[in-house]
């Protein structure tokens, strides 16, 4: 009898393992419904500061929606009850087949679309049926710039202000174009592709200035941020993120909170001799601005080269967050989230400004879902880290010491010369890369589209040749614990825990959009555009786009008074280069190691930029 039941047990176990392995083979099983992990708690919650996030006028004039970078639309016609009826209003082919990371902009009945290289700018007339093109502006960037862009030839967005559209081109120029006529007003050459500099970021326009930073942290460039006069395009100030204090615009106003960031000329002394001149710390991500204090906030990229043995020291001011006075560029504080970065954990992610309940008052803070896997809440006046909580799986560090501000290293994950370090989590693109989260003042939650990848990494000596990659690392990425490569997390920043999580099969490379109707939108790399309930993550609606979605969704009020949702598909970027650059999936180190993690992507989507705009039926 005992023997029989044993056989039954074994047979049962075999059947179960068959089922399990079958599940494992089908990637679709990695996509799951939401797992609700905590209730939304009532009472006071985080709110964006009014000065940085004014009342919604129905336009969408900058990628982050406002200076607080909430990516929140106050329009509420679309709700969980009716979003199922959302239907296509019109479409527009962008004429490109590279990674499309930019959002469309909408200003008083006109939509503006900036494409990846060759950086076409289209104006579409929303007052006419089908939204015909009003004009197209072609800036004609140098073709050779494509060869020094590390991670596809993307552009992260244009900005509208005071009758003009401002944007950057891959070959290092900033343009101002008249929003009505499509005529160029000015252009300024800032980057030099011969040194490996490109520009992919969206500028921030505030205080009469256009703020722009360079890309090229993988090419041995020296990172900087520049402020151009909004009217003329002339340089007002330029701050480097490495080098002597005078170059970094560090002066009497600079008061970093933590001892590790204090001292003279740390931008030189925390590097081997001359290494700071080719040390990265670029500005290819997101800027936010607090009009009350006139402080602009931005993060710096990884230090170069990737091989950390060639740059002993903290490598200031890489992989950290600067607060600067927007008028002069003078640094006010700095916090380095990853001193002596080991894993390409840039710190360029979005900076969401919020005021949180603090005793009986409110405290001005900023939220950052960081690349190194921690969700930071930082006092935006002082740079003090109030909390740093993992929002994904992290073994590459052991936490953040809130006394010293310093990331606590994990000795077993520290790369050593001559051997491969395995199972580093999160991988180089971090627990989240560039694609910004959205913050809803209705729920008080931050909606984080992110990734779940780990990697093996080995180093060799990097050889600096200007205009070529400066890396010294071989990387191979793969799915992290659980097998799902993407996660969508609704994060409670006050209670420092997820409210719900949705597992996604593919890495999430699309930003999120939150709306006052309690519907949240995001896209997947195989082309699904999804609407979920902001309170519990339930999937409410989805639409299959022609290509994978890595673009920024927006919501606007059309000339007819209706609420519209717009997103541009076009797979690519670092995560999707395997498709947009037609790479060969047999090489696991392709695209700086990302190719291995998305080997199946070419079977699931094809390249091509297309705008989709949705509305409820009349």
């Amino acid at each position, binding site marked *: 009898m005992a023997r029989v039941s044993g056989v039954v047990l074994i047979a049962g176990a075999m059947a179960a393992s068959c089922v399990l392995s079958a599940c494992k083979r089908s990637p679709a099983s990695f996509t799951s419904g939401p797992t609700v992990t905590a209730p939304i708690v009532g009472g006071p919650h985080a709110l964006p500061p009014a000065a940085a996030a004014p009342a919604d006028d129905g336009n969408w004039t900058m990628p982050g929606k406002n200076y607080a970078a909430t990516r929140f639309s106050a329009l509420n016609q679309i709700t969980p009850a009716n979003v199922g009826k959302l239907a296509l209003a019109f479409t527009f082919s962008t004429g490109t087949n590279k990674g499309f990371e930019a959002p469309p902009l909408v200003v008083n009945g006109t939509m503006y679309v900036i494409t990846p290289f060759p950086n076409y700018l289209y104006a579409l007339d929303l007052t006419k049926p089908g939204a015909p093109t009003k004009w197209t502006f072609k800036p004609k960037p140098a073709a*050779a710039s494509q*060869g020094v862009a590390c991670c596809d030839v993307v552009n992260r967005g244009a900005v509208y202000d005071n009758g003009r559209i401002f944007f950057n081109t891959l070959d290092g120029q900033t343009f101002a174009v008249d929003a009505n006529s499509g005529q160029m007003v000015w252009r300024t050459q800032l980057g030099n592709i011969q040194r490996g500099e490109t520009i992919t970021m969206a500028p921030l326009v505030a205080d009469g200035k256009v703020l722009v930073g360079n890309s090229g942290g993988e090419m041995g460039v020296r990172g900087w941020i520049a402020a151009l006069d909004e009217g003329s395009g002339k340089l007002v100030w*330029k701050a480097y993120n490495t080098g002597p204090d005078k170059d970094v615009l560090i002066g009497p106003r600079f008061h970093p909170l933590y001892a590790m960031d204090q001292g003279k000329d740390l931008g030189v002394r925390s590097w081997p001799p001359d290494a700071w001149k*080719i040390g990265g710390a670029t500005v290819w991500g997101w800027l936010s601005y607090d009009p009350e204090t006139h402080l602009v906030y931005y993060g710096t990229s990884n230090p170069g080269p990737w091989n950390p043995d060639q740059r002993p020291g903290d490598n200031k001011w890489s992989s950290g967050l600067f607060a600067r006075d927007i008028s002069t560029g003078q640094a006010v504080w700095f916090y380095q989230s990853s001193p002596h970065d080991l894993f390409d954990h840039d710190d360029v992610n979005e900076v969401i400004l919020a005021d949180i309940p603090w005793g009986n008052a409110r405290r001005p803070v900023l939220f950052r879902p960081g690349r190194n896997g921690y969700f930071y809440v930082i006092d935006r006046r002082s740079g003090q880290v109030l909390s740093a909580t993992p929002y994904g799986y992290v073994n590459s560090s052991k936490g953040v010491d809130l006394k010293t501000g310093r990331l606590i290293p994990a000795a077993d994950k520290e790369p050593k010369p001559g051997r491969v370090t395995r199972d580093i989590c999160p991988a180089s693109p971090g627990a989240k890369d560039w694609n910004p989260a959205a913050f809803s003042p209705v729920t008080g939650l931050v909606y984080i589209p992110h990734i779940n990848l780990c990697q093996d990494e080995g180093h060799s000596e990097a050889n600096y040749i200007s205009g070529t*990659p400066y890396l010294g690392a071989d990387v191979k990425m793969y799915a992290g614990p659980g097998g799902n490569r993407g996660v969508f997390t609704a994060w409670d920043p006050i209670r420092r825990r997820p409210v719900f999580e949705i597992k996604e099969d593919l890495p999430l490379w699309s930003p999120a959009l939150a709306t006052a109707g309690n519907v949240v939108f995001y896209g997947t790399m195989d082309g699904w555009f999804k609407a979920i309930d902001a309170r519990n993550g339930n999937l409410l609606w989805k639409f299959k786009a022609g290509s994978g979605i890595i673009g920024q969704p927006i919501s606007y009020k059309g000339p007819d008074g209706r609420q519209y949702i717009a997103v541009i598909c076009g797979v690519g970027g670092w995560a999707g280069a395997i498709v947009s650059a037609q790479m*060969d999936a047999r090489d696991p180190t392709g695209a700086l190691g990302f190719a291995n993690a998305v080997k199946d992507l070419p079977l699931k989507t094809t390249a091509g930029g297309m705008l989709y705009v949705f509305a409820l039926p009349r």
Partner: protein
Amino acid sequence: MSSRFRVSLAVLAGAALALGACDREEHHSRAKPVGETVPGGASPDTIFPGTSSPPPLDARAKLYDNNANAIAMGQTLYTQMNCVGCHSHGGGGMGPPLMDDQWRYGGRIDQIATTIAEGRPNGMPSWRGKLTADQIWDLAAYVRSLSGLPSKDAVSSRTEGMSGPTPQTLTPHGDIKNSDTAQQ
């Protein structure tokens, strides 16, 4: 080109014809950089008006194609000159893949050598004057091997240069001494 080199070239070519497989181990004059011997110009899909076929394979190609020493030296240069940063180990990234069977500018070794020497307009740098012609041919031989085009017995599992000195190239190690000043 010295007459002595021309003679050895002829000898090598003759040997190659006679003894197909032996040339994979042939050492040639890579220690002595030669002048402008990289073919210029034509790419594979170019139309050649007035003729019915593209020009024949460059005669120097035989010295390098399927030659284990050239491929091994090319592999060393591939890492040293940062080709790997853009093309990875053949899978591509910033630059196109090299291990597949698609060639934008031609997959013949002389065409690959031309691409390396002259650069291409969408971002491929020009290495003429940065590498010797001999080194450019070596690199081309290695790039071709990534696609699996040369015979297997010529593709070495060894890499040259690991125990010996780094190959001397003509590339200046980027001028990082003169930093640009912050405030223009």
